[in-house]
């Protein structure tokens, strides 16, 4: 799950930019993007942000980036599921010790089971 602010930050990173910005709420269309997202162009004497009249990224660019990030996040769901399903490192070391001493395959079987239960898409 991602949001517009994260998408703008991603566009900044990809473009090597450092645009500072403010997002109020979660814009879902171009009109909301235009009214609820501001980019900082400077500060007044009190240190309060001055906002730019223009936006460095269009709604199309930002919404497309958000969709891309969401797809990447969804595609990596299996990694998060596996990470939480693997036995603890202590348990895995214990399995490996007993496998080495007893000639069993407990550790390999446990890891394989987690991968099977949470397949890569």
């Amino acid at each position, binding site marked *: 799950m991602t949001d517009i602010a994260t998408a*703008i*930050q991603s566009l900044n990173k990809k473009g090597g930019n450092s*645009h*500072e*910005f*403010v997002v*109020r*709420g979660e814009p879902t269309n171009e009109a909301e993007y235009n009214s609820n997202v501001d980019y900082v162009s400077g500060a007044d004497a*009190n240190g*309060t942000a001055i906002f730019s009249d223009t936006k460095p990224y269009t709604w199309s660019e930002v919404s497309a980036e958000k969709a891309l990030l969401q797809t990447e996040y969804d595609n990596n769901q299996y990694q998060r599921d596996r990470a939480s399903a693997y036995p603890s490192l202590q348990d895995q070391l214990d399995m490996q010790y007993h496998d080495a001493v007893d000639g069993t395959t407990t550790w390999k079987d446990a890891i394989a089971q987690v991968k099977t239960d949470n397949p890569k898409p």
Partner: protein
Amino acid sequence: MAIIRLNNQSISSVTALPSGIDTGKVLQMKSVNSSTTVSISSETYVTLDSMSITFSPVSASSIILFQHSFSCNFDHVNSNQGIRVKLRDNTVGADEFAVTAGRFVDAGNGGADDYPYTHPTITHRKASWGAGTSKNWILQANNVSGANLMKWNRQSVFSTSGVATFVITEYLE
């Protein structure tokens, strides 16, 4: 109908409290709240639009207590992160109080401290600025590391908005 004048003054100039009001009593309270998250990557202060209260003390000898409670998330702590909140007298355009409300320092451990969360309450105490004198108070916030993302009024990074509150209380001390 005759107009009764108290001590030969107009009603508007009667500002002293009646006798018999004990210390510790609340004279008035005003509050606003917001369920809108404001994501800030700015190192300059941004006005939190919904956090604005116009307040007029009823007593010249009271105490005014400002309180702001909110949730806050930081996306990544691969560099130092923090939020500063400023209370501002918007009537005269002067800063009243600023505080670092949350601060996280890069632990240098490969992002193990990603997505920290805090729910601070900020308080500020001030003597009454005069009975019947109205002032507009606003809150502003900034991100001490603008390269990262700070989400004011967010319960957790992928969760819903929180309910931020801004309360001004006038009481006798």
